[in-house]
């Protein structure tokens, strides 16, 4: 399992725990002191990136699309920050 944390400049701390299968995301948990509205969407967001390849831009687009589709708001971190932290966790995978 890979772990990473990333402090967003002027924003919040994002932490990721990641399980991969080859180059794809099998399971991901995103924790931290950011704000996501509505809150309950976090698990769905995690599900939405499962199966995605570990490429920052692909992940960021996927997260962005998810937020848009669900009219969700992220505060203190951006889809790019989430994506970056997920990729960082992937690099730490053992």
């Amino acid at each position, binding site marked *: 399992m890979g772990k990473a944390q990333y402090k967003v400049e*002027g*924003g*919040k*701390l994002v*932490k990721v725990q990641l399980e991969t299968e080859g180059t794809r995301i099998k399971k991901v*948990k*995103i*924790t*931290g*002191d*950011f*704000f*996501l*509205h*509505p*809150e309950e969407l*976090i698990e769905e967001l995690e599900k939405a990136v499962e199966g995605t390849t570990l490429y920052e831009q692909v992940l960021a687009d996927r997260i962005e699309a998810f937020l848009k589709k669900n009219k969700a*708001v992220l*505060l*203190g971190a951006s889809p790019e920050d989430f994506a970056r932290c997920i990729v960082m966790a992937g690099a730490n995978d053992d």
Partner: protein
Amino acid sequence: MMIEEWRLLDTGFHDAFYNMALDEAIVVAQSKNLVPNTLRFFKWEPSAVSIGYFQGMEEEVDTITCDARGIDYVRRRTGGGAVYHDRDGELTYSLIINQKHRLISEDFQETYETLCSGLVRGLRLLEVQAEFKRINDIVVEGKKISGNAQTRGMNVVHQHGTVLLRVDPSVMFAVLKVPNEKIRDKLVKSVEERVTSLNRVLRRDVGFEELKEALTKGFEETFSIRLAEGTLIKFEEQTAAALKAEKYATREWNFKR
């Protein structure tokens, strides 16, 4: 024009689970139009740690130390960070406001600024040079004195936050996880540089009542409202008891992440 009246509650000391349950119960009551917009003040007994909705309990909190010291730990319904709520060192408030209210913007950042401006005014009434700092803090001379967190749901905006009367960073870091033990002392020092309290700024003992009165006035003036002391309705008490038992005091909720 008649001045708009909101309800003012002081629910005193309660445990962490009831405190968080009561906040949600008031939100539910407001969403059903059973109660007016509300400002609630409250305190924590025993002292407690609350974590943000998205945080991991084991990741953030040293639950073994908490258990040994009789400190509660609870997950909030709002995002944001882990907070140590000292029984004697902190006053906590909640604002529960209908989402259609004139003070509420669709934009979260803007709404933080608006709602926190009531706190800033209240602190300035105490001669504390408080300022709002994005995203959700209030600072004095660049040091944090108040943290705030907001959520929306059921057409109600709920913002709660803390105002520090005194700080003991050594307790704070005994109950919050630190990356490694070697830097604990360093962290304690850095908190002393980044966090402040009313007692430290004013160099005297500020009481809960004095702070409460100043904040109440700050909200009244800034929001152009009158805060009328009120009580909980039965529905809120019953809902709070149920939410405590079924949600906030459960392991499923507190350890779900």
